């Protein structure tokens, strides 16, 4: 059986909205609202969805960069939310993060070598005398030149900086790496280099990735399983093949059909959703997607759908929609 | 908008209360017994005690403060210890003079400062820009009493174009206004310039150009309104400085305004007048800030009304 590395139970992250006369909390942004999932050792689990759906918030909550409002996070069976500050800091050795903007997350006054050695020093993973040797190893691992160890971040291009960010994450031998839009800011040709690097490192070091992204091409390339989020909720979770070839949730279908295919001969039907994503303050009742869903009925407006697995879906593939059966059988269809 | 103004007005209460406390403690922190000062050095202890009683100085401090606030709320500051005239009679005429000086100077600063700033920004790096910025730097670094003295020396004494002192006629007003308004004009010019330059490089200015609008329309309709937002804040802050600067300017040109009055009465330890004067200045300052906030909102519709 696959070993569960991280288990997230009923995670909620609400941010207060201040207002009124005295700046009281008048409302909440329900950035993440009751999500449950697990990550298995050695896999890449991706989280996709449109801007503001709660992807980054989920990542930050796992790292406890922000205290979650409610829920449980178990890492190797241990409840992360029960740890105190110091214990959590030690745990960060196992849980590393790579951000979208590599520049903002690197100290401009430190050389690459210093950045890497500082990370090792904090977690005390390598004796001081061997740190430099290890730093050089890491730099070469991520495809940079060992001469570049004494350079400063501004002397690198975006793609190279992202490599430095990856090297820093690797420096403490983490088990789980949370990559938040780690390749989104890069040009296609550079993005491909970094994606290949991430895959190679995963094989070499048996890493587990939680990969946050909005580009479904990238996600298909790197993931084993995928979570689709909409307005703070998981709407579908499945292995890669099922998600791309047998999507069940109307939102997933729309999302997939919205992406332009780089092949002019392949004309396809596109489901164009009407309207915008509603605000996460006072999100729609019932199914949060009902304001834009072409299949919405009365029940969708009142009852929150649960994640379900049905006979025609592979094991582990679950979607949160009241009408999966009818949509699948063709009883419900979009009239155009 | 109304809700916003009401809220800002409510927020003024603690500020004004703070100012009142400071002004009140002024009298009690300065060495010497006020009653003694009123009565004079040679007065008998009985007279002093009598005066103390009359002024309520024998009561506990919190009670005194309560009375002070109650009276201040109606602008009743009692009588001057020097002249025994009601404080308001002493203060109001001087207050108007100072307000006039400040307002004229402000207008001077705004008109010249903004015009210079706009020209500078639109013609960045041209000789016009360079000279405007040089003059502004000069205007900023020169202490205003010194500028006042120089102006007086050249234009009044050497050339005899303007009367050197006094307040009232147009020719008397000009030099003090330039004296007091120059540094403000300089600050506003610099702020307008940098703010305009910032706005000119924004995407929406490019959009306006792509629409086929004339440069003049772009500058005045699209850029200026956005650029004014930070300038208005600076103008508000300037006004506070202006009231302080007025004190010096009034001394240089022997203008009978609040500044001169307060300075004179501090020396004479005429506390009621000093307190009232400072309180009036503080209140004006606070209200100007409110006005600035309101116009800021008005210019910047993006800031949420609630």
């Amino acid at each position, binding site marked *: 059986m696959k070993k569960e590395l991280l288990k997230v139970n009923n995670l909620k992250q609400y941010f207060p909205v201040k207002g009124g006369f005295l700046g009281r909390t008048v409302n909440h942004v329900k950035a993440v609202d009751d999500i449950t999932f697990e990550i298995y050792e050695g896999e890449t689990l991706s989280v996709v969805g449109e801007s503001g759906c709660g992807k980054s918030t989920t990542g930050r909550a796992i790292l406890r960069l922000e205290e979650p409002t409610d829920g449980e996070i178990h890492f190797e069976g241990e409840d992360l939310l029960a740890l105190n500050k110091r214990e959590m800091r030690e745990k960060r050795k196992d849980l590393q993060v790579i951000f979208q903007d590599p520049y903002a997350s690197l100290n401009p006054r430190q050389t690459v070598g210093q950045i890497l050695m500082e990370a090792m020093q904090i977690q005390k993973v390598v004796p001081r005398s061997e740190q430099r040797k290890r730093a050089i190893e890491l730099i070469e691992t991520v495809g940079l030149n060992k001469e570049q160890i004494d350079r400063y971040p501004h002397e690198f291009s975006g793609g190279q900086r992202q490599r430095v960010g990856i090297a820093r994450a690797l420096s403490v031998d983490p088990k789980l790496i949370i990559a938040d839009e780690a390749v989104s800011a890069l040009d296609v040709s550079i*993005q491909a280099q970094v994606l290949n690097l991430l895959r190679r490192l995963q094989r070499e070091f048996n890493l587990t990735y939680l990969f946050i992204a909005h580009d479904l091409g990238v996600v298909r390339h790197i993931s084993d399983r995928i979570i689709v989020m909409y307005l703070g909720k998981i709407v579908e979770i499945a292995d890669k093949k099922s998600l791309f070839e047998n999507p069940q949730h109307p939102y997933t279908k729309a999302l997939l059909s919205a992406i*332009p295919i780089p092949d002019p001969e392949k004309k396809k039907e596109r489901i*164009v959703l009407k309207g915008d994503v509603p605000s996460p303050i006072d999100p729609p009742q019932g199914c949060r997607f009902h304001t834009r869903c072409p299949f919405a009925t009365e029940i969708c407006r009142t009852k929150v759908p649960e994640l379900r697995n049905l006979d025609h879906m592979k094991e582990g593939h679950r979607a949160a929609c009241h009408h999966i059966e009818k949509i699948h059988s063709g009883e419900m269809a979009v009239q155009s | 908008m109304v809700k916003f103004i009401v809220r800002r007005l409510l927020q003024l209460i603690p500020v004004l209360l703070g100012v009142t406390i400071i002004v009140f403690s002024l009298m009690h922190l300065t060495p010497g017994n006020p009653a003694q000062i009123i009565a004079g050095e040679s007065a008998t202890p009985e007279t002093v005690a009598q005066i103390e009683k009359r002024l309520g100085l024998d009561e506990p401090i919190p009670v005194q403060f309560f009375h002070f606030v109650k009276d201040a709320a109606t602008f009743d500051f009692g009588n001057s210890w020097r002249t025994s005239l009601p404080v308001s009679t002493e203060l109001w005429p001087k207050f108007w003079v100072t307000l006039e000086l400040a307002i004229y100077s402000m207008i001077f600063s705004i008109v010249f400062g903004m015009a210079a700033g706009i020209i500078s920004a639109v013609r960045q790096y041209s000789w016009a820009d360079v000279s405007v910025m040089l003059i502004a730097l000069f205007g900023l670094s020169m202490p205003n009493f010194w500028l006042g003295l120089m102006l007086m020396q050249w234009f009044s004494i050497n050339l005899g174009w303007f009367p050197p002192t006094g307040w009232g006629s147009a020719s008397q007003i000009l030099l003090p206004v330039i004296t007091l308004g120059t540094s403000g004009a300089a600050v506003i010019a610099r702020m307008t310039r940098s703010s305009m330059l910032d706005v000119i490089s924004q995407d929406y200015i490019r959009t306006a150009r792509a629409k086929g609008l004339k440069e003049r329309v772009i500058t005045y309709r699209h850029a200026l309104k956005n650029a004014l937002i930070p300038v208005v804040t600076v103008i508000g802050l300037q006004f506070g400085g202006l009231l302080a600067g007025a004190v010096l300017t009034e001394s240089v040109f022997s203008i009978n305004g609040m500044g001169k009055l307060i300075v004179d009465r501090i020396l004479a330890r005429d506390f009621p007048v000093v307190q009232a004067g400072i309180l009036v200045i503080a209140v004006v300052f606070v209200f100007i800030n409110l006005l600035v906030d309101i116009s800021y909102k008005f210019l910047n519709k993006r800031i949420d009304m609630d």
Partner: protein
Amino acid sequence: MKEEIILEVSDLRTSFFDEDFEIKAVDGVSFELPKGKTLGIVGESGSGKSITALSILRLIAKNGKVVGGEILFNGKDLTKLSEREIRDIRGNDISMIFQEPMTSLNPVYTIGKQIYEALKVHQGMDKKEGDKRVVELLELVGIPSPKQRMKQYPHELSGGMRQRVMIAMALACNPKLLIADEPTTALDVTIQAQILDLINDLQEELGMSVIMITHDLGVVAETCDYVAVMYGGQVVEYQEVKELFKNPKHPYTVGLLNSMPRHDVDVDELEPIKGNVPSVRNMPKGCRFAPRCPFATELCVTELPELDRKEDGSEVRCWIYSDRWDGDPEVSVRNEERTT
């Protein structure tokens, strides 16, 4: 029948002058756009796409200048027009929409007013007539309850809505050419789909020609008829869209296609282009792509190839297709296994 060409750009060069240093942001861009068609300009960031677009309308920053080439719009060379003449064209015959819907609208005016402005300068419409047209335009771009919306300020609208407003503004005077500079890059995919559909529909309805600038090959495939691929400030390949995807000629185009992860098919290993995008301040002397090109030869490193036009109208800037090619004569730039 020969198609009527609405825009022909030949050997455009635009430079920025930073102190005494010349930054050649656009250094040899040529393409033509037949009337009523869509031309895509693709390339990675910094390849000169936006500067090319801004050069057409002469909207480049003060320190920049078109230093060479021609831009023929309906036969008229835009680079030679007076300031007044080009102003009459902007927003009227040629309109432009930008990448950043969040910052491209003036925050202190209502959207109605901003759209009306274009109507006023070019068509002299009065307020009443203008308002009617504004409502029509907002309806056209699919903004619900336009009468209320026109009184709103940009911050009250979402990114997708603002981009619709930008489009409405661009369409106000029925332009013959619409230049869209990465109109959907800042938007979510579902909103991108809405906007691309809108531009396509409007193009059909109004018969406009469109220049679609993007870095997304998917967007190109779905919206364009012709494509110009840019690299290091130059057009390296110009092709009819189906040909480009079926038969890419320039090694860079091939590299770009091979490094793109796709959501519609599984790709085992991406084949990235090695190395980094060159900086404008430090361009290779020969072929701009030589340091990253798997086929580069001595000739490539020393001499810059011309953008060479073939009989079928396609163009490619690469020594492989010339008589002077000094490498493997049998070379094939395409990696056969990749074709699906």
